[in-house]
């Protein structure tokens, strides 16, 4: 009997201690939740998009988050963390398809309790996760994907995209051809057989019809994503030689196409225009043909405008990444995190209770806002203030043997309002109508 009572007392003590520990831990967790801002960062950490996009973007996020947390970023990003809250990133692999991403998004919000998710390179992934975040009333920033359909076919309150969509890349490419007085009677295209490729070829074709009305589309190649072998497509493109060959291929697909097409002379027979290619310049090096017109989905990398912010970003990224300079993916990640930081801090100022602002307050602060990023000014001008526009840039490749790198010549930047539709028009309607309201000077 005595032993039973002793055991009960012991259990009771253990229960009290356990309860006290739980309470303490709970309080600490609560305090941490208030002092921290948790960001789920989703990008390709494996698969074919990892090398070109996912990993560089995450590398960029690490550089920037460390600088934010240490308060070492230049003004107006020099407050520690987000308004004093420590930024805690949670990195998730985007590889695995849209269905998996929807589940991962729910996990991030419900299990990891992240305040915001910043992510997604794949257009298909963006189209899948955006309605889910909206339904859950959780904050989502799409940092990279290109399809214009996100905000042209739906309205969102909690979803934002802090980079221009793909219409800019193709309108900009045709404007560059026109500005450089390239004569075009016929053009060929080779784009991947999914949302990104289809949107790209449509916008390029429509833009050509406006700026080169006499030109004709000759060939429209649509290899599947990750095809790897392009010998047949190259034969077909060379069977119908065109003045210009357009492509929005990217990553390993683009590198494989270049490696196979260059020795066969495609780049000598046709002026090749690659709308999203700055990320292959470093890995390809002297295997990148000279004279190719390339875009970077913004004024990124070598085509970024000179500014103190860009110099700082370039230098910090290179220091952390063995001298490799930043290209489009890390630039896009940087502008997403910078926009988010300013929006959170603005919402904190507006938050009369002080402390961490609500999702609604952050959304209100980000909607329609503008900020300076390394690539220039980002304006949340479309999709009722949820879709960014920004300047685009194009240039021509040249391998510099002395520098042992591909440099870009004839760089031309186009203002955001020159290559993006106005707020009240869909991209394809704007292009078909002849770019009404475009401001190119």
């Amino acid at each position, binding site marked *: 009997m005595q032993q039973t009572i002793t055991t009960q007392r012991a259990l009771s003590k253990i229960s009290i201690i356990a309860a006290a520990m739980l309470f303490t831990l709970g309080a600490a967790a609560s305090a941490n939740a208030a002092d921290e801002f948790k960001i789920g960062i989703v990008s390709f950490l494996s698969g*074919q998009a990892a*090398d070109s996009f996912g990993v560089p973007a995450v590398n960029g996020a690490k550089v920037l988050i460390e600088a934010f947390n240490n308060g070492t970023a230049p003004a107006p990003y020099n407050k520690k963390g987000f308004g004093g809250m420590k930024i805690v990133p949670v990195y998730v692999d985007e590889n695995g398809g849209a269905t998996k991403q929807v589940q991962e998004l729910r996990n991030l919000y419900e299990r990891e309790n992240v305040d915001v998710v910043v992510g997604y390179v794949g257009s298909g992934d963006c189209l899948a996760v955006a309605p889910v975040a909206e339904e859950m009333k959780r904050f989502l920033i799409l940092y990279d994907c290109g399809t214009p359909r996100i905000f042209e076919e739906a309205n969102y309150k909690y979803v934002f995209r802090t980079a221009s969509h793909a219409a800019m890349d193709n309108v900009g490419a045709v404007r560059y051809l026109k500005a450089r007085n390239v004569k075009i009677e016929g053009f060929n295209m080779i784009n991947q057989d999914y949302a990104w490729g289809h949107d790209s070829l449509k916008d390029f074709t429509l833009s050509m019809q406006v700026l080169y009305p006499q030109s004709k589309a000759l060939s429209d190649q649509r290899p599947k994503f990750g095809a790897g*072998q392009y*010998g*047949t*497509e190259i034969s077909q493109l060379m069977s119908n030689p065109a003045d210009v060959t357009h492509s929005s291929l990217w990553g390993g697909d683009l590198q494989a196409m270049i*490696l196979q097409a260059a020795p*066969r002379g495609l780049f000598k027979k046709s002026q090749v225009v690659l709308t999203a290619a700055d990320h292959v310049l470093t890995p390809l090096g002297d295997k990148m043909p000279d004279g190719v017109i390339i875009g970077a989905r913004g004024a990124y990398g070598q085509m970024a405008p000179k500014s103190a912010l860009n110099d700082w970003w370039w230098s910090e990224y290179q220091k952390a990444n063995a001298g490799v300079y930043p290209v489009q993916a890390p630039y896009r990640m940087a502008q997403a995190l910078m926009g988010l930081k300013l929006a959170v801090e603005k919402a904190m100022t507006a938050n009369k209770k002080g402390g961490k602002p609500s999702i609604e307050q952050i959304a209100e602060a980000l909607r329609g806002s503008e900020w300076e990023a390394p690539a220039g000014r980002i304006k949340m001008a479309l999709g009722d203030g949820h879709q960014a526009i920004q300047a685009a840039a194009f240039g021509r490749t040249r391998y510099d043997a002395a520098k042992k790198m591909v440099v870009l010549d004839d760089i031309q930047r186009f203002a955001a309002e020159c290559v993006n539709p106005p707020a009240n028009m869909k991209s394809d309607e704007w292009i078909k109508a002849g770019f009404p309201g475009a401001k190119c000077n």
Partner: protein
Amino acid sequence: MNIALTIMIDGLTYASWLFIVALGLTLVFGVLKILNVAHGSFYALGAYAAASLVGWFASMQLAPELSLIAMLLAAVGVAVIVAPLCERGLLRIFYGRDEVLLVLVTYALFLILEDVTKIIWGVNPFYLSEPYALFGNVDIGKQSYVGYDFLLVIVAIVVGFIVWWGLNRTRIGKIVLAVIHSEEIAASMGVNVSRIYTLAFGTGIFLAALGGALTAPMISVQPGISVGVVILSFAVVIIGGLGSIPGAAIGALIVGIARSAAVHLMPVAELFSIYLVMAVVLMFRPEGLFQRSQARKI
């Protein structure tokens, strides 16, 4: 140049690398009755190993022509080191179990090897485009082809002939055929079936790795290259008949030419064309073009 000739040349070059890889897949199925989902991973390992070895040869300032030897050695290395590990260490445990289970085991192996590849080589791409330029260009009409593409055709013919000759004209080949027909009777006649399994699996993996090593100069070698090739290889062996070497050759040719014709004549139907051909073949020959109908064992 006549478009038909262009289609034939493109189809032939595409079919050649596909045949080398699919031959390995069909050989493994023929002997071990395993539909090896991890076959693409061995293709990727061959490509990575070739990239590393060719890079090492270059750093030793050896003649560029020797890079072809390096590629061959890379494929041999994968077959000698990785294949026995997988076959003896994993697959052997599941022999005699349901075929569906074996498919799942090879799928697990595929996932494991994907990560192993990333652990060893990372996610950054590798290039070994020097061998691609070794044979210059061949001009046919308006087209300029890279000589290396035709080397692949020759290699595919030679490899196909060696495998056929090895199976049909050598003692060990006849033993392998005996195991294919009935492992129980072969075992009762004193054949070491286990050793034949290891040999056949190693040969199949060598062919996958050789396909990867030979393709490596044309692509950027990076994570994800294993997926597409295994799907195409499945299409080839299903068309030709699982376990049939002539079937793999004809299947690869059909896939190569169908795809080439679609790219030239109706690009939007490129992917569809391959599976349309497969569906048509399966409608009339469910067991594939070169697979004989077999009585079910009771």
